[in-house]
C-alpha cells in the first residue's frame, strides 16, 4: 500500500499555495493534516500528480476572538487544539466538546479543521458542528477572498463549494452567548470510529422561558451534514420539556436522508437519529452553565 508518485511543494505563504494550485489544476491536491488524504493515497484511491503541503504556512494557523466575539480559527489548526485549548472551550464549548470525539489522539494531533471541512466526509464531526453553529468558511482564490456560509458549503459526498483554484484559510464561528444550551452525541461502532449517526444541537432560552435560535444538525445521515429544520421548527418559541423534545425528534427524522452501508442500515440511522435528537436536547437543557 505505497502511494503513487507525486511532485511535492511546500509553499510558505497563501499566495504561493494559490499559485501552485493554479498551475497544476485538478491534478494537484492540498496536503493539510494528511489523516484522510494519505490513507487514500496509500490505497491508490487518490493519485494527485502534485501535493501542495500547507503545513509551512504560518498565516493558516492561529486562533483569535474578535471584538464582536466571533471565533476565527486558522484552517491549519489541529483538531487536538480544538479539544484542548481553553480559549476555544470558552468561545465555543460545542466545538470544543465535539472535537474530542474525532478518531484518536494521534489523528487529532495532525488533522486540521480546514482539512476536515474540505474533505467533507458525511459522517465527520466538524462539518456537522460548522453547520449547526452557522460557521462561515473564508476562501482565498486568485480573484481574492470570499466567505461561504456553512449551509451552502457542503454540496455532496466529499464535495464542497471550494472552486478548483481556491483554498480555505479561516473558519469563523459566530459569537456564542454564554447561556446557550448545547449538546452532541454520536453512535459509532467503536470509540473514535466514524459516526453511524450523530446529532448536534444548540438553542437559547429567552427571558420568556421560550426556545429561540434552535439549531439541529445530523452527521452520517445523508450525503452532507444536514440541518434538521423540521425539528427546529417544533422547538422554536416553545418552552423546553421532554414532550417537546420527543415531538421535535419525531419531526426531525423527516429531514434525515440516510443511506445503507455495512455498519448500519438507513432504517437504523433514521430511527436512532430520532433517539439522539431527543437525548441531545435533554442533555442540552440539563447542562449546568
Amino acid at each position, binding site marked *: *500500500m*505505497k*502511494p503513487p508518485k*507525486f511532485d511535492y511543494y*511546500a509553499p510558505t505563504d497563501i499566495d504561493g499555495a494559490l499559485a501552485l494550485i493554479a498551475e497544476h489544476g485538478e491534478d494537484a491536491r492540498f*496536503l493539510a493534516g*494528511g489523516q484522510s488524504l*494519505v490513507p487514500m493515497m496509500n490505497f491508490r484511491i487518490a493519485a494527485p500528480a502534485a501535493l501542495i503541503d500547507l503545513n509551512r504556512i504560518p498565516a493558516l494557523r492561529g486562533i483569535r476572538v474578535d471584538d464582536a466575539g466571533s471565533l476565527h480559527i486558522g484552517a491549519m489548526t489541529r483538531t487536538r487544539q480544538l479539544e484542548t485549548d481553553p480559549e476555544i472551550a470558552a468561545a465555543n464549548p460545542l466545538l470544543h466538546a465535539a472535537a474530542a470525539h474525532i478518531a484518536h489522539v*494521534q489523528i487529532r494531533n*495532525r488533522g486540521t479543521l480546514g482539512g476536515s471541512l474540505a474533505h467533507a466526509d458525511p459522517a465527520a464531526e466538524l462539518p456537522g458542528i460548522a453547520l449547526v453553529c452557522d460557521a462561515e468558511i473564508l476562501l482565498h482564490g486568485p480573484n481574492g477572498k470570499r466567505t461561504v456560509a456553512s449551509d451552502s458549503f457542503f454540496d455532496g459526498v466529499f464535495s464542497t463549494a471550494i472552486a478548483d483554484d481556491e483554498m480555505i484559510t479561516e473558519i469563523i464561528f459566530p459569537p456564542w452567548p454564554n447561556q446557550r444550551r448545547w449538546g452532541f452525541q454520536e453512535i459509532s461502532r467503536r470509540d473514535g470510529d466514524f459516526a453511524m449517526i450523530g446529532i448536534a444541537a444548540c438553542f437559547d432560552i429567552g427571558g420568556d422561558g421560550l426556545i429561540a435560535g434552535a439549531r439541529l444538525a445530523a452527521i452520517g445521515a445523508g450525503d452532507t451534514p444536514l440541518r434538521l429544520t423540521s425539528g427546529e421548527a417544533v422547538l422554536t418559541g416553545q418552552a423546553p420539556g421532554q414532550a417537546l423534545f420527543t415531538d421535535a425528534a419525531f419531526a426531525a427524522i423527516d429531514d434525515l436522508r440516510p443511506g445503507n452501508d455495512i455498519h448500519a442500515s438507513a432504517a437504523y440511522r433514521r430511527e436512532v437519529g430520532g433517539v439522539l435528537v431527543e437525548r441531545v436536547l435533554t442533555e442540552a437543557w440539563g447542562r449546568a452553565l
Partner: protein
Amino acid sequence: MTGLHRIELTVNGNPQDCEIEARMTLADCLREKLNMTGTHLGCEHGVCGAGTVLVDGVAGRSCLMFAVQAVDAEITTIEGLARDGKLSALQQAFHDNFALQCGFCTPGFLTTAEAFLAENPVPTRAEVQRAISGNICRCTGYVSIVDAILDAAERLRAESTP
C-alpha cells in the same frame, strides 16, 4: 520539486541524511533508509497505531506523513526511548507487567504512552484506556498495557519526587 529529495532528519537527537522520493512515508524512510526498523507497519492507513512516532514530542502516525514533511521536526522512535542503555520507566514497566507478547504493536504503545504521560502524569485508569484506544493489540487484551502505563506513571512520580 520533482524526483529525489535530499533531506536531513533529526531522529532520536541525531541528524540523519537520506535521499528519497517525496512519496516515501516517514515510516518507510525510517525503516528502509535509516535502518531503524523498530517502527512497524501494521496497516499503512492510520488505524492500527503500530507506526506511531513522536514528532516534536507529539504522537502521530508515521505511515500518514511523508518523510519530506519531517525535516524540521525532532522525531522520536522506540529506538530513542532508552537512555544510556537503560530502559525507560515505561519500557521497564511494560516488562514487569507482561505488557507485550509478540511485541509488534509495542513500539506504537510506547511512543503513545510516552507522550501521554508527559502531558498527563497522574492519569486515571479510564484516562489511560482512552489514551491508548487508537492503538490495536491482538495478543494482550490491553489490561497489562494499562497496568504498565499506570505503573510507569507512579515510578516517574517517585523518581521526580526529591
